């Protein structure tokens, strides 16, 4: 199972807890994980990625295993620790304050 941690506002919207467990078929990539998340919660379509371009929204970040994966290719494999459930994949609202 892939463990995904949502930011506060998306937890509130979906009614999900802090962490969501998803069954994701290989290959496990950022794209396939978010596809599975959006399939579970259709409300999230357009809120993490642009609906049309499927690009990450500007103020969303993706972290895992102590790394910022936001600028990695969406089809690149995720770290093994995420794939085997040891580590969570974090969807984060970027710092954007003063």
């Amino acid at each position: 199972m892939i463990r995904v941690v949502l930011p506060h506002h998306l937890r509130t919207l979906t009614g999900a807890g802090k962490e969501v467990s998803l069954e994701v078929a290989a290959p496990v990539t950022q794209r396939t994980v978010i596809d599975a998340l959006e399939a579970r919660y259709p409300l999230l379509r357009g809120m993490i990625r642009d609906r049309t371009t499927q690009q990450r929204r500007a103020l969303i970040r993706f972290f895992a295993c102590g790394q910022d994966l936001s600028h990695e290719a969406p089809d690149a494999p995720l770290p093994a620790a995420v794939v085997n459930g040891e580590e969570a994949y974090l969807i984060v609202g970027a710092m954007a304050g003063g």
Partner: protein
Amino acid sequence: MSGVRVLVGTRKGAFVLTSDAARQRWDVSGPHLSGWEIYHVKGSSVNPDRIYASQSTGWFGQLIQRSDDGGQTWAPVGNEFTYVGDPGTHMWYDGSQHPWEFKRVWLLEPSPNDPEVVYAGVEDAALFRSSDGGVTWQELDGLRSVKGHLWQPGAGGMCLHTIVIDPRNEQRIFVAISAAGAFRTDDGGATWRPITRGLHSPYELPDPDADVGHCVHSIAMHPNRPEVLYMQKHWDVMRSDNSGDLWYEVSGNLPSDFGFPIAVHAHEPETIYVVPIKSDSEHFPPDGKLRVYRSRTGGNDWEALTNGLPQSNCYVNVLRSALAVDTLDACGVYFGTTGGQVYASADGGDTWSAIVHDLPPVLSVEVQTLP
């Protein structure tokens, strides 16, 4: 017993303020949808328990929320706003062409006839319509064909911020866009034309005959006299007696004719309200005095309404969707400020008091008069 429900959109959530018809004691509910920017909240006049809210943030984008119990509980509906076809480009600040990109919903205007029908004004400027209570949205794309490539964003973005529906004929709709102008459809949104004859914007538009590019800030109509429109433009308060075919200035003795909102008294179609601010570069009241101005003559002759409003050191603004009236007798007038106050007058503007002082910056105020 009748009452009033004031729907307030703020930078950090929505608030619902309710009172009986005396409008002296208020219950404050909120923040609803807390932490999100609520650009607009408006209820259906057909079914007052049906309320729509535009919810967004820079992080997560746009949601539309709907309440079916008068604002007590909310549920997200549809948030897919897809332009018809290839939307092409519009003018950018530097004069180049820039792709049309959906950013947010500024305004939600429920149909006066059907609670399932609601219109959305969006940035980048376009008009969408839903006929299923906000679940799905279809663009009325004929609007963008009216020289859309020449539209250019104002300082606040290229937003469609005003939708006025003729209550006697829903085929006739007026919209306003910053800084593209005002437009009218007479066929339910299939075709549109600019309604800007008589507007003059010499400091923004050197071409006196330009039919798009005027920075219209808001338009108001009295439902019993839908051919008469009032407009607060970037500069100038304007009036049209023929559904926008021709406008003439009614700024008269205002201390400044710059402002954002304009509203019409519920029972007196010639009584109108504006909140002047100093200038385009100084968005606060002249002389630090928060004054609503009322004209009982459809413009030109204005009186300052100050009783209960701060008359020194006040530097808030009142945004374009943050002034509204109820339909009780006497007519109530309400407005919200960027300082987080919501002021109410239960006597047509003669006296004012703050319902709340310390909300987040107020983006919109709408009023429902309840049976």
